[in-house]
């Protein structure tokens, strides 16, 4: 039973979060800051694309470092 629950949770973790959980955390943090900036009336549209590029670059760098 426990093994089945673990497999179920593992599947959804792999499905939604994938190999690098820091990307998911980074996305959540970015959107939180975006919402705070927008609520304060500060233009925030530039933040998510910039964060995506940084998160992707960081994740790729980490993966290729592990490779070497």
């Amino acid at each position, binding site marked *: 039973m426990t093994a089945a629950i673990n497999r179920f949770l593992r*599947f959804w973790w*792999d*499905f*939604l*979060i*994938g*190999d*690098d959980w820091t*990307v*998911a955390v980074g*996305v*959540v943090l970015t*959107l*939180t800051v*975006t*919402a705070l*900036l*927008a*609520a304060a009336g500060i*233009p*925030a*549209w530039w*933040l*998510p*694309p910039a964060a*995506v*590029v940084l*998160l*992707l*670059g960081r*994740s*790729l760098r980490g*993966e*290729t470092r592990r*490779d*070497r």
Partner: protein
Amino acid sequence: MSGTLLVLAVFLACAVEAVEALTIVLAAGLTRGWSSPLIGVGSALAVLAVIVAIFGPAIGHVPLNLLRLLVGALLLIFGLQWLRKAILRASGHKALHDEAAIYQRQASAAQTAARHRRAFVTDWYAFTLAFKGVLLEGLEVAFIVVTFGANQGHLAAACLGAALAVILVTIVGVLLKKPLARVPENTMKFVVGVLLTSFGTFWASEGAGADWPGADRALLVIIPGYLLVSLLFIALLRKRQPATSAPDLGPSRTEVTS
């Protein structure tokens, strides 16, 4: 404009997943006979249709900004997974997805597995192999169809894109009776990764309260922008010496162990 991109994104994502599912179904059907795998395919498609029919209209009732924030965030995380893997594959740091090798492995396993009857299914192994293959590959498509369709208000168009891809891949698969190893699967995954990440960024930002300059037209800058950055990452990573990658025989979650 975004409606056309929506259908294109769903079509490409669905075609890629359909090619992967076809490989598994062919391995089951050609080695163990077709009746049980076809029942498996039909059952999986029915489950997927129910998922889309329930969640598609249901999430349409969530307030638009909340929907865009939640679904956009999920789509962004999901899209970054696709894009990350596609960049690693294109730069040589991850082995390319090889349908012919996956087929060989699945077929070898299918030839040696014992044959058991359960309920109306004469070959449980073949049924399970096809069912799991289609369901697990199809879940990603169902997710994309539901999220894209609900956000854009074009669930029918998203379903159409998915259906066209499945029909096309099925027809080609039936005619060839072998895995579609020549489909540019890795390139398609790269394009889908760029599109999912772009739409995810656009919707999640809007949901968080940000206003895009030019509204929908911002996608015409975001998509080529991400494409350019991804190509740049590929060029940079190619300069790094990768370790020898083991062949990518598909995600382990599509493995059938019993």
